[in-house]
């Protein structure tokens, strides 16, 4: 009985292995185990739940903002690195794509200064009751 079960299992697995093997032979490009995608998928769910809970529990101030940014960056990193396969690309491509968005951060810094200045002027000259 046990032998039969083992035999059956072997029978069932053999073609699957064969299919994977031939698939791997033909496979070109990005090939990674399905398990990896499932793990990343799970983590994305967990991180999204965390960022939702930040709002649900009504955290405020710097704690809220830093947690939101942390979960955002972790999720973005997982998506780009694993789902979009950037972790396995050559650095020439990775840097060509990932470095230019740094310019956006410079733009953010400029606009933070600018909007604080605008806010200051509005408070100074259009100060209403608030």
């Amino acid at each position, binding site marked *: 009985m046990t032998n039969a079960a083992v035999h059956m299992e072997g029978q069932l697995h053999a073609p699957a292995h064969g299919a994977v093997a031939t698939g791997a032979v033909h496979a*070109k490009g990005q090939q990674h185990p399905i398990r990896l*995608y499932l793990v990343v998928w799970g983590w994305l769910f967990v991180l999204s739940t965390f960022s939702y809970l930040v709002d649900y529990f009504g955290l405020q101030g710097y704690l809220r903002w830093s947690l939101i940014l942390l979960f955002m960056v972790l999720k973005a990193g997982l998506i780009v690195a694993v789902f979009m396969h950037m972790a396995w690309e050559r650095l020439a491509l990775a840097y060509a794509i990932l470095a230019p968005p740094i310019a956006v951060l410079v733009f953010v810094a400029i606009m933070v200064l600018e909007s604080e200045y605008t806010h200051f002027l509005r408070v100074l000259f259009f100060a209403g009751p608030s």
Partner: protein
Amino acid sequence: MAETVLTHSGQSPARLDGWRGIAADWASDQRTFKNVSWGKAMMWIFLLSDTFIFSCFLLSYMTARMSTTVPWPNPSEVFALNIAGNHIPLILIAIMTFILISSSGTMAMAVNFGYRRDRVRTAALMLVTAAFGATFVGMQAFEWTKLIMEGVRPWGNPWGAPQFGASFFMITGFHGTHVTIGVIFLIAIARKVLRGDFDVERRGFFTSRKGYYEIVEIMGLYWHFVDLVWVFIFALFYLW
């Protein structure tokens, strides 16, 4: 002719890694992206340009929100729903987030099965991805309808800073358009996969060029990017 643009032509055996590799790739006086097809490289460059577009939207939203002297409407309350008598903050957006992440997961697996030349599973997973995407757009339409009924307009709203409506419609509208285009793109490629175009190397209707299973990965890049943008919108617009 098409053979010359093959992506994975086992070129020179050993390539350098690290900084030397970057210098060698960029200075080689040939194609820079050595083991990446033009299709994939150009999709990445398109996504980079799209990154800048969405960055500009989020930046203008940040500038409006930081410089206004009127209080910004609380998104946690604006997007709350009453479900079975319970008032749950931001619940619709949370569900939309999970739907989009699930669609990214099925897309990643579709790419995997594509490279294994598993026609049926690839197409099925792509269609599941498309269904998730369509659900997302449907929920977004519901959200827009609800807000418009409550009086949100690009020039004002009942709760605070008038720029809220303009930022909301612009950012989520542009993202929803991307999802919609992605769904159409997914269905088109899934049809080709199911028909076996990439197994018999059938030539495309418009381009007359052979397709390869790599298009599933390129399509996947676009779809994951849409999910990626939502990660930023979710964090910066809805949660902030």
